[in-house]
């Protein structure tokens, strides 16, 4: 029961808590206030880039753009490439920003059909290079290619050498019982490289054959991981996590990252006969608050500085033919000569049906 005797300590406790709370409240101002510290609209206003979680540029590049144009750049990052397009469709009437970067060719025609991007006037010299990768049917240039790369199977060459097993080379070879329980791929429903690999098999085996191919992989002990990082870091033998499987789906540009400390060649290589070519596009959003700023930022993404930085910062090949690739890329990360492809219109039309069929076949 309450007695007067206990009041002072109680009050002390209350004061302590109150003091703590107010101290915390003071520091808290900085979270909400601090978030807006760099939001002061500069002379030329703000341009907002909407992009996926893998976007990043080396330090100083965006600052350089801000200095040159007087614009301040805001970045809004959403989840993966697939979710990105869907969010743009959902927010068409009140767009999240001015420019989108990161729509890939698996979703490009969906973005065009939904009208989330509008044609832009590209003035950068690399625009001509970009046009070579244009989405078929996008005659007005609503989407501009910025970079591209190959999604391919990667193998742990050291593992195959140590086991004395010949390396697999093609999609077909993975059906061989010699490679039972060796392959891991990310789920195409929850991962965009996973979807790219599903499209590679559709390109390779056609509408009629790809399901059988996956049924064969399934029967040969295929492992499906949730996303690229689980597959590469937890299941793959050479990703850093010492997993059990020596064949993984990754990128043609992954091997240079496995050059060991003090070594001079990577312990993995990409199988260039198993690839799907991914192209990443940027576009000015319909209803953008600052379409001029968006066009300036789009030109900047095609500038030599950014194009040269793309391999370093985003592990993709630049579309521009006027910049040099890093040395180790030329040696260890060549592109495929004959990547598989599927027409973007077909992808948009059948994607859901293919994913459902894939799920029924592989996951059951």
């Amino acid at each position, binding site marked *: 029961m309450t007695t007067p005797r206990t009041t002072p300590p109680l009050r002390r406790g*209350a004061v302590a808590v109150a003091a703590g709370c107010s101290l915390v409240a003071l520091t808290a101002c900085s979270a909400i206030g601090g978030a807006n510290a760099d939001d002061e609209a500069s002379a030329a206003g703000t341009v907002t880039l909407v992009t996926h979680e893998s976007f990043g540029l080396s330090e100083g590049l965006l600052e350089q753009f801000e200095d040159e144009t007087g614009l301040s750049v805001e970045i809004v990052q959403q*989840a993966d490439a697939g979710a990105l397009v869907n969010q743009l469709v959902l*927010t068409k009437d009140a767009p999240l920003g001015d420019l989108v970067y990161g729509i890939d060719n698996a979703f490009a025609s969906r973005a065009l059909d939904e009208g989330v991007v509008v044609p832009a006037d590209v003035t950068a010299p690399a625009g001509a290079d970009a046009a070579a990768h244009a989405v078929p049917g996008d005659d007005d240039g609503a989407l501009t290619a910025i970079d591209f790369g190959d999604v391919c199977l990667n193998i742990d060459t050291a593992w195959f050498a140590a086991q004395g097993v010949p390396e697999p080379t093609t999609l077909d070879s993975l059906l061989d019982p010699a490679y039972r329980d060796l392959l891991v791929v990310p*789920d195409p429903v929850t991962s965009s490289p996973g979807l790219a690999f599903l499209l590679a098999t559709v390109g390779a085996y056609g509408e009629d054959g790809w399901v059988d191919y996956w049924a064969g992989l399934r029967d040969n002990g295929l492992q499906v991981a949730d996303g*690229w*990082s689980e597959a590469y870091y937890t299941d793959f033998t050479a990703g850093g*996590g010492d997993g059990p499987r020596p064949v993984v789906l990754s990128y043609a540009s992954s091997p240079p990252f496995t050059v060991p400390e003090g070594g001079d060649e990577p312990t993995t290589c990409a199988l260039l006969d198993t690839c799907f070519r991914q192209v990443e596009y940027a576009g000015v959003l319909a209803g953008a608050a600052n379409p001029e700023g968006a066009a300036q930022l789009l030109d900047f993404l095609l500038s030599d500085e950014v194009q040269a930085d793309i391999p370093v910062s985003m592990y993709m090949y630049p579309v521009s033919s006027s910049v040099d690739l890093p040395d180790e890329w030329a040696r260890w990360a060549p592109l495929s000569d004959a990547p598989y492809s599927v027409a973007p219109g077909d992808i948009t039309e059948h994607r859901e049906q293919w994913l459902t069929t894939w799920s029924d076949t592989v996951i059951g």
Partner: protein
Amino acid sequence: MPTPAQAIADRPAPGAVGGAPVGGRGSPGRRGSAAWPRRLGWTVAVAVPVLFLTVFFVWPVAEIVGRGFVLDGRLDLSGFGEVFARPRTWRVVGQTLAQATVGTLGALVLGLPGAYLLHRCRFRGRGALRAFVTVPFVLPTVVVGVAFRSLLVDGGLLGGLGLDGTFTAIVLALVFFNYAVVVRTVGGMWERLDPRAEQAARALGASQWRVLRTVTLPALGPAIASAASLVFLFCATAFGTVLVLGGRRFGTVETEIWIQTTQFLDLRAAAVLSVVQLVVVVGALAVAGRARARTERALPLGGPEAAHPVRLRDPLDAVAVAVTAVTVLGLLAAPLVNLVVRSLRTPDGWGLGNYAALAVPQDTLAVSAWQAAGTSVRTAVDATLLALLVGGLVALVVSRRPRRNSARRAVAGLDALFMLPLGVSAVTVGFGFLVSMDAPLGLPIDLRTSGVLVAVAQAVVAVPLVVRTVLPVLRAIEPRQREVAATLGAAPGRVLRTVDLAVALRALGLALGFAFAASLGEFGATSFLARPQDPTLPVVIFRLLGRPGAENYGAALAASVLLAALTAAVVAVCERLRRPGIGGAW
């Protein structure tokens, strides 16, 4: 048969919400018209949280779910037939219920002995252990995926068990996450129970087990029901854990909503599934509410120091020690130690290289992991303050037992309403924000791309935790204490301050730590809203894991350990806030 004390305790308390203005027997009515300011006070106490929840939860969710049910401007419910015609729908509903039920039972079976040991016994290192068991609760699922799966895959330390990609692995991970919820929710109540009732029963010759069964556990009923309902909701809406550890083979309603929304933009199917999820959640809450109502009563809290030194000869203590040791070492520590060990491996041998990397921005991130940790802490502080304010008001209002039945029902409804955020999928809330927060309430401000929304979203999730932690303690206050205070001439505000607030303060440290931990680790909403200029630590970890290179992998693991350490430190500090010394004996 109620004791006279209980009979008095069950009488409505003065200061009832929504009831007639309380003159109250014995209320001296020192201020002639004390009723209306008090009414105003209660009205505000109800209005603030309700407004908060309506703007930042009900409206966005209604907005996105509504889109699934409206076709060409007309209501269209044909989605139900379509979705229920898919065999997969029934499978995911069954899977969700199975997973949540087994996970909840597992967490209770392991957590109750843990609550006893960590809150009813004294031993060296108890504070450290309390902080440690909270760590799993905040780890981002992507990290738990790494920690668990690298143990379970072929060739991993526990690869021989063949658990990788099984239902068991998912349930173990769910228990790993939720063990702390049971320990803290039930433990918070347990340590405040007056031990004299148990001592009396013992003196009358009851065995220890009988006392546990007939005195202690019934008294803990509300806290156990609270904990079970929280854990059930967490398990039923688990998302990353399920996908990483089991893949879509073990798809739940939550993962299905996520896929239909983000990957297929099939808002119709997502809306139907959201309604299904809501039905499951409301059902679970109703069951928990009934269990609570049956057991909730004023309890003699406090009294002499209840915790005793551990006595291994005592069978109860021995069982608690054994169960907790196995749980902590086998289930909690194994994945965490695995994480730490892996974080110490660098491309050039063992060392702290990955930790050195935390000080500089990795890869193309604009900030270092330490800066991100700062952002995380600041955001979590904002979220925690919001959650304490809103949750505290809700707990205060709901703790009253009004006289009128309609008012009682309103109070119970308010309680359930604030539990809903735990039972609605993060993607529904996230996409709801996207379609509703571009100019909220007509204000010319786009909240969607502002950092403020991150804190708000985290607070929405933390509020139920605050309510569930503070409420059992508030409800256990003897109404007679308030009556006595009022009789002695204390004004209503003074009664609140000296009786309710004083008791609530004891639970506040617990609630604070809980809400803070939840905000620190929150990733669902953050992943929709965070901005790369100031990413939180879970976002940094997620991004590093998404890039190739041993350095990035190592830095991601080290950052995860940093997040775990940060959490443990915060919880330990909050523990100090609530030493029984504060407030002295009751």
